[in-house]
């Protein structure tokens, strides 16, 4: 379980076909940029969940 939780953000960060495009634009930022920036806090959340699962 811990390993899956850690793997998800990694896969999401490397799946370039998913995010290598301009649309939809958010606040003027192309998708490519805001997707990756949004993924940063999200990845932190996944690591936190893995920690919770582990220390249970």
């Amino acid at each position, binding site marked *: 379980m811990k390993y899956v939780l850690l793997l998800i953000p990694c896969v999401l960060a490397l799946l370039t076909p998913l995010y290598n495009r301009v649309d939809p634009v958010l606040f003027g930022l*192309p998708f490519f940029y805001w997707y990756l920036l949004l993924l940063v806090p999200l990845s932190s959340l996944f690591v936190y969940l893995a920690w919770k699962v582990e220390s249970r």
Partner: protein
Amino acid sequence: MIDNLDWTATAVFVFFFALVTIVGFVAARWQSGDLSQLHEWGLGGRRFGPWITWFLLGGDLYTAYTVIAVPGVMYAVGAYGFFAVPYTILIYPLIFLIMPRLWNVTHRHGHLTGADFIAGRYGNRWLELAVAFTGILATMPYIALQLVGMEKVIQALGFQGSGIASHLPLTIAFIILALYTYKSGLRAPAMIAFVKDIMIYVFVIAAVIVIPAKLGGYGAVFDGAKAAFDAKIAAATAAGNPAPAIGLTLAPSQTWLFVSLSIGSAMALFMYPHAMTGTLAASSPHVIRRNAVTLPAYSLVLGLIALLGLMALAAGIKVTDPQQAVPLLVRQMFPSWFAGFCFAAIAIGALVPAAVMSIGAANTFTRNIWKPFIEPRISPEKESFLAKLMSLIVKLGALVVIIWLPTKFALDLQLLGGVWMLQIFPAVVAGLYTRWFSGWALLAGWAAGMLAGSYLCWGPTALVTAVPIFGTTFYIGLVALAINAAVAVVITAVVPGRAADETRAADYEDAARAR
């Protein structure tokens, strides 16, 4: 030499630099320990809690060079430079998984470096030497690049000069750094990291609000950057050259390179001696786990810093050296006093990693090269003294590289450094989970990876990081790592290792659960 100096900016710059110098010397007294012991000088007595570790590791991750170079790549080619973001996303799951195990085992056996662990695990001095040598070799150009970052902002203050005189401010800054690192050890960068980070946050928050506002919003920033890229492509095609792979998104030829470079860089980062030093100085494995959750705050800042490169394009800043893009953007967009503040933040951002790097390299030299091969019965006091001395020599070496050799040399070595660092990954990380591999097989794998990696990087005109395979392009570091791992697996399968292993399975688990 100083005719074009921006005096207001320079005064602010010097003020903040003086401030951190005082902090650096005062740090010796903080959480005081006996600095004649290596683990006190070089690991801060292993008493760093979650906050200090956060600042210290964060300081390793985004350095003066990062602040200058990442937006520089964005300025030059666009989306490809944004690999810094997926790269830093991959780092934390990796740290969460492997570093607590390394912390546990090194703590239990009194190891101070990654190579110490290797020696204990595989009972092979030559593998220990290979790991230590790789770390020191890759760290030197890294320190040199911190100086490059510092020099770019000093130039942007308007300081000009020729010959040796042009390096005078940098030399002064570096002597100061060398002296307080010598005196205070790891406590100095840990304390300075507080000041540096607050300054960097202020700079970045101001930059991502004020600069786009001046340029007409983020939409205008990206439109402007796109127009600049399109113009470059049009110019290249008109001249009869192939269109360069630049733009707001990745070209098809770049996607695998983007992915493999992110993976390879993330795997290499925590193999560097300075990153290990920062991690092993933590007071418990929980501190490391907590940091794996909270450190991504830095990645966010790094992503925003990267965008400064596109802002420079949109603002119409024209430079031949992309590394000048951010300093010039700051000077154009902010009043002098705030530009001085930003430049000080970047320059101080060079001090923290440069200090930790020189300490990491010095610890490694003392423990894994000098002690086992030259003076096995060294006293603890002499060990600490030798490391202090070594930290000076390492920094001096970096300074000499910057002053006497072209910057490109340091850049090329840094590029190779990442490829080299990856080659100790199998020994360190596999070693944390299994003792199946034999030390000699890992050593042969390391040698194969080092040779293959360096050879593939060597282009006819310049060093490159990419190699074409199966019609697409990959990061050379990962390719060399695959060769390395294959060699290690085959040799171990044929000749299993029988050397002594001083660690036990329980050493890798958290103390509470093991007992």
